[in-house]
Structures are given as C-alpha cells and as structure tokens.
C-alpha cells in the first residue's frame, strides 16, 4: 500500500500535469507487474465490485470514532468526500502498512464474499493498521470511486513513457473488457498477440467546439460536414462471426440493443464502425427522451422495442476486411462505409449519417439553422484528409452546435458540491412561474465562475429559509438564464418537462424574480 499511497500523495500534491505523469511513470518503472496492472485498472475505471455499502461504512466509522452517526453526516458535506471524512474521523493512527497494492486489492475482492459481521471486523482492523492517507486510499478502493486528478489519458501517457511504447498503441490495448483477474501486465501491455480480444474497440476520436468564426478553421473545401446527432456514441464491431457494441465510456452495450444484432445478416465480418445509436422511427430520429428509456435497461420489454426502436447511424469506418484503416484519410474511409451501407434494405438496423454538401461557410451556416427541426444538435466538421485519431486533437474534428434554448428561472434550492466544490453552494434547483407559484423544472451545476459561486455561497448562507439535510431552501430572489439543448414532455417531473444538458448561462443581476419566465413560456419551447 505504501508505494501506491506515495504515488497518490505525489499526484495529489501537485497541480502540474508533467509532475503527475512523471510520478506515474516512475511507479510503472518500479512497481511489481501485479501492482502495475491494478494501477492501470484503477485509473481506467476498472474497479472491483463494491465490497460494502456506503451506509455500512458510515455506521462502522462513526462507531470506531466514538461519535454518533448524525455527527459524521454533518461533517461529510464540509469535507465533501466520504472516503476522506472517514479517514479523518477515525482515531488517529501512526501505523503504516507496507503490503503491495495487489495484496490490498485481493483483500477488497475477498471482502465482497464475506458474511457482514466478518466484513465489518476485517475493515475495522484494516483501518487500525493504516495512517490517514492510506485510510483514504483504502476507502477509495472500497467504495470504488477512484478519481484523484488523473485522467485515463495521463495514465496512458505515463505507461507509454515507462514502457517506451507508442501512446496510441497503449490506449488501444487498454480498451475493452479485461480485468486484472483475466490478464497479466505482460499480456496486456508488453506482448499483445493475435489472441487479442475479438471485441476490443478503438479509442474514440473526439471533437473540439467551434468558439469563434467558423471560417477560421480553413477553406470549406477541406472539410466534410454532417449533422451532429443527439444519441449515444458507439462503435459497432463485427469480427469472428460476432457483433459487439461499445459506448464511448467503454461500456459493452450489445445486449441493450437487441435489434442491432440483425446487423450480422447485412454486413461483412472484419469491420468496425463509429456512429451514433439513435431512437429512430419512420425515417426520423425520436427525441433523446425516448432513447433515455432504453439506457440502463439490460432487458428490453417488447413494448419499448416497438415504441422506441434504435438504429446505428454510422459515420466512420475504422476497420475493413480485418485491417485497421484508421490512418487512411476520412474521405476514403467514408467512401468504403458508403459502399457498404447505402444499398442495404430498409429493415437493416444500420443506416448512414447523411453528409451535408455545401460550397461556402455562409451556406452551411444557413443549413445549420435547420438543425433543431431535423432533431440534430448542429453540425460536425471533419477534415477530409484527416486520419482517425485517439482522443481530442485540435484542428481535426469540430462540433458546431446551434445556440442553446434559454429561459430565465428563479433559484429556489441550493446544495453544496463535492470534492473541490465542498463548502461551496454549486448545485441549484430552478423554478418558473405558474400563476403565483414557482414550479421547479430543472437542476443545474455548471456554467458559473468560481468567483460567482463564492458570491452565491455567501448569499445562500444569508438567505436560507429552511434546511433539509444538505439542501437549503432559499429566498426566491436570484434569477439565472438557464441554457439547454432540448426539452421534452416528461411525466416524471412535476413541471411536466425534462431538459437536456441544462446549465447556467449567466446570472441575471438585472432581473427581479417576478420577471422570470413562466411555465407557459417554457412549454412553448417544445415547439
């Protein structure tokens, strides 16, 4: 544990990306293979199953600290992190543990299968053997939320440095469905073979948003345009007679979309397509809300298959005839894709994302204005001669979104954030007028500066009317312009609407609460 805790401490005590990468690379050069593998797993979101619920952990920690549970609950929002709250509240200890990370992970995996009383005894005894930083790391391992200021990308870069390999190749090897129990460091990183998992996806290419004038990205002839769909980004992989679908979050989604399995009947093997899974009916995409009903459902009832069927709308081809073709220019890849899909019968579950032809930026800008009517969020611009790259690379792919919808709303509840935002009120509930009543319709967390959050925090403290645990009802006085990408009817919400990507666009200091928008104004945006 000590080596890994030292690594955590180094990462945590610097704001420099280079220093973090250097610390990780040093770990990858010196740790045992087992520890390296676990480190990769943890920093790429491959956590072992939660061994214990957070409720039990809170109870046991309060008991061990000799304080009532309510007191721990009061301290938690001040600290902003449960693992840390527990580490700090336990009686001070100067013991340190020297076992390797892999031994601790084996311990955590073992806990999951123990009877609860034994699990409790084991955890209490483990806490007693650790100093407070080690306790914090151990609690993070237990609760499975290992996010400590290192992205998978930084970890990948450090691993590439330490093993003297290409970063993109490493990124590719880390994709897919391995766990430290199913592979070894050497198989995963050092000597990948033909035995590679047939389901392994490629790292996704991502886009930057266009902020200024679109003409700044270059001559229109260099660029290919298509609609930006509001679905689930996914890769469809057909290899070895099987079909797999991966989300951008590296989640295997094959079973959630059974209707896509038919792709096997229409398409050749040895291909990987990049595209968007959309709820789609009668030749048009359905609102995201319909797709939402499909997300998170492992088995899909027949009624839902009927009311919200999905298709894969493909826009890129990464593998063809079993060959990785990511280095070929976009236009070539796209031509191969078109050739494969354009003549498929209408009952095929894969369709092409149409390209938008244009001669100059002004024409494209006019087209972009029609996005919302087409159920699109705007346009995607891809460099015609560009390869398919891993991650977000400036100047290759751009998203050119339409302006969001906006509404002026009154803040009625505030809650403090977590982690870096602990003690700051950053999570708000907003309402619009319905007669004399304020009807809550959305929450929003982002879009303001730290200085504004500081100011609002002071205001919330001075204007709290009622407390419900961590939530405060505030005087309905502050007005914010709320921006969102879409709005749909919803039976689950009191207001009757659900928003897509709500955030605070600005604080309307100039507007009194009485002049905020009404529920009628909001519903009118559904068009």
């Amino acid at each position, binding site marked *: 544990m000590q080596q890994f805790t030292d690594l955590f401490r180094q990462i945590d005590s610097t704001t420099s990306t280079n220093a973090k990468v250097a610390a990780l690379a040093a770990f990858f050069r010196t740790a045992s293979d087992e520890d390296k593998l676990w480190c990769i797993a943890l920093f790429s979101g491959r956590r072992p199953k939660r061994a214990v619920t957070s409720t039990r952990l809170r109870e046991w920690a309060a008991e061990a600290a000799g304080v009532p549970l*309510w*007191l*721990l609950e*009061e*301290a938690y929002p*001040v600290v*902003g992190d449960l693992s840390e709250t527990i580490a700090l509240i336990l009686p*001070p200890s100067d013991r340190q543990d020297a076992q390797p990370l892999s031994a601790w992970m084996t311990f955590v995996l073992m806990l999951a299968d123990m009877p609860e009383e034994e699990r409790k005894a084991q955890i209490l005894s483990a806490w007693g053997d650790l100093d407070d930083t080690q306790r*914090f790391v151990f609690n993070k391992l237990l609760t499975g939320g290992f996010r400590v200021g290192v992205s998978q990308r930084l970890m990948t870069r450090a691993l590439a440095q330490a093993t003297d390999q290409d970063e993109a190749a490493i990124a590719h090897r880390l994709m897919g469905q391995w766990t430290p129990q199913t592979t070894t460091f050497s198989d995963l990183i050092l000597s990948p073979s033909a035995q590679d998992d047939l389901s392994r996806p490629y790292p996704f290419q991502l886009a930057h948003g266009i902020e200024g004038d679109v003409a700044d990205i270059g001559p229109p002839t260099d660029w290919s345009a298509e609609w930006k769909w509001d679905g689930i980004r996914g890769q469809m992989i057909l290899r070895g007679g099987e079909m797999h679908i991966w989300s951008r979050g590296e989640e295997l989604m094959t079973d959630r979309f059974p209707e896509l399995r038919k792709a096997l009947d229409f398409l050749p093997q040895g291909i990987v397509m990049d595209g968007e899974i959309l709820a789609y009916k009668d030749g048009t995409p359905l609102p995201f809300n319909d797709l939402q009903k499909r997300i998170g459902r492992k088995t899909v009832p027949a009624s839902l298959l009927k009311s919200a069927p999905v298709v894969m709308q493909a826009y890129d081809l990464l593998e063809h005839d079993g060959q990785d073709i990511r280095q070929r220019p976009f236009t070539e890849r796209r031509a191969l894709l078109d050739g494969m899909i354009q003549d498929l019968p209408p009952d095929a579950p894969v369709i092409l994302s149409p390209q938008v032809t244009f001669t100059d930026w002004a024409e494209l800008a006019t087209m972009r204005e029609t996005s919302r009517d087409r159920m699109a969020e705007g346009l995607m611009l891809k460099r015609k001669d560009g390869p398919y790259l891993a991650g977000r690379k400036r100047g290759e792919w751009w998203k050119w979104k339409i302006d969001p919808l906006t509404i002026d709303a009154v803040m009625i509840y505030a809650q403090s954030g977590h*982690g870096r935002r602990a003690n700051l009120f950053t999570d708000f509930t907003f309402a619009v007028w319905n007669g004399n009543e304020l009807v809550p319709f959305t929450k929003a967390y982002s879009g303001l500066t730290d200085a504004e959050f500081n100011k609002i925090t002071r205001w919330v403290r001075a204007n709290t009317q009622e407390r419900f645990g961590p939530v405060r009802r505030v005087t309905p006085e502050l007005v914010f312009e709320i921006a969102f990408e879409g709005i749909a009817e919803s039976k689950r919400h009191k207001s009757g609407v659900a928003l897509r990507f709500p955030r605070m666009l600005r604080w309307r200091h100039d507007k009194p609460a009485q002049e905020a928008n009404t529920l009628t104004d909001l519903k009118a945006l559904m068009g």
Partner: protein
Amino acid sequence: MSRSSVLTFTDKGIYCPAGDFYLDPWRPVDRAVISHAHSDHARYGHRHYLATPQSAPVMRHRLGNIALDTLPYGEARQIGDATVSLHPAGHVPGSAQIRVEVDGEVWVFSGDYKPEPDGFCEAFEPQRCHAFISECTFGLPVFNWQPQQMVMDEINTWWAANRAEGRFSLLAAYSFGKAQRLLAQVDPSIGPILTHGAVEATNAVLRQIGYHLPDTVQVTADLDPSAYKGALVIAPPSAIGAAWAKRFKPAQTAMASGWMRLRGIRRRRAMDRGFALSDHADWQGLNDSIRATGAERIFVTHGYTEVFSRWLTEQGYDASIVSTEYSDDSLEQAEVAE
C-alpha cells in the same frame, strides 16, 4: 438571562453588567477587555482598552494611539463589582482567556484558543469555572491535528527539497500569529528567510518585547531575489497570489492553516502544498478543554456552533449558541486568513 448572569450577550458584544465593560465588543463601547490582538477581536473605536502586556504593543501597532491599560496574566483586577483576570489561551502571543467573577460565580470567555503548546506563545491554561464561552472554529470530529513537530518536519522537508532544486518556497500565513509561530519552528539552518513587510512589522514589535525569532530579511522594492535563491518566503495569503510574489521565480507555493486538513480546500486554493497547522483547538482539544473547566453551562461562539452545541448537549452539558461577529463564517475567512 437570569439576574445572576455574570455575562450577557448583547448586539455590541459580550457584556458584564456588574463591571459595566464588554469583552471583545464589535461595536464601539466605553470599556473593552480584549482577548487577543487579531482584528476581529480587537477593533477600532473603543474609549478604553484592557489587554495583556504582550498584546498591547501589537494592538498599538494595529490600532494606533489608543487608551490602553495592561493586566499581566494571572493578576486579578476589580472592575465595579466584578473581578477580572487574564489567562493564557495559547492562540497567538499575548492571547488570553478572560475570567470574570461576580459574587463567587465564575464565567470564562475563551477568545480563540489552542491547547497544544507550540513552544512559542504562552501555553493554554484551563480555568475552572461555572460557565465557559468557547469558540468552536473546528468543532467537527474530522478536525484532528497532527503533532506540530510532524507538520514542521513536512514544511522543513518541503523547503529543503525546493532549495535543492533552486526554487523559492512561498509560504502563506497570517501576518500576526501563524507567521511568527512558523518562523520560531522552522529550521533556519536550511537557508535564508525572507518576509513580507506586514509580517516583518509584527516581527519587530514582538522581538522588542522579548519573543525570540530567527533572523529574517524583509522583502523591499530594491531587494534582489537572485541573491536569495532557495529562500523561504513568508507572506500573507493575499500577497502570495498577487503581483508581489511574481519576483520569486521559480517557486513552489504553500499555505499553513487548519483548513488545509481538507483535500477539497487544499485543491481549491490551487497552491502546490497545504500544511495543516492551526492556532485553534481541534475536536479533541475542544472537548478536553471544555471538560477541564468543570463547567456545566457551555456557550459556543464562532464556528460549527449548531453541530457542536448539539454534540455537547448529548454529552450532558447545558449548551447553547451565542451569535457573535468574530469571523462569523470562519471557513470563508480562512480562505483569506485564519
């Protein structure tokens, strides 16, 4: 308040009717007894001040020409029908708990306090009393300080490592109290120590009345930083983030404050390091100190008052909250000072 209340709580501050004086008042009054020289406790505008001889020069330095009388630690003074004495609070040099006795009933106002001796300011001495008015800035069980020596070792290691790499070590600390405690405890053999003008002015006042501090060099406009590569620079937090600190390059920044115990706040400060060193009582310290007074009635002021008074009530004390205007929102204040 019952007739026998030794102290009452008014909108100007804590008041003693028997002696007609206030304790650390926040509105101008005739007679003020002051616990310590921090600006939220020793304010402008009172007609007469009473404080310890160690507090007096710092107060004069900060408040100018005030009518100030001194009362040494442990000495009793009769004011009207009340007997007043001052006892070390261990918070900053000269800091005192204010003990007030009327007709055999004893009330003690803690001011700000720290039970752990820091080897620099006068060590906290618990006072037996009937009622105790306690701060609770860190009145949550997640605040448990590590021994001072451990934190100082971390600071010395950090400074030495920076010096070895030719970097300055910029350490943010409140200019009266924390800065001098750090100065008194760092290892001056590591390298030269530079100070911000606000810190150095307080140093001068304290040196004059006999507090021992290592040699320091004040940062002035004509100081050439390159002659002090690898120095430790102690300055108020506001200066570390400002143009003032730009002359020290390359540098690592750090802050010494009890709030640095929390990772979220450490990260929000965007400093390279945060050292959890506080001049206030931690959770254990608050509980032990309160127990040591033998008091049954506890009034809690600035800090996590609601939570802490509920906890004390569950422990069997007659605890209540008193609202004061001492750095009311301590966490927010802490983002500037402590």
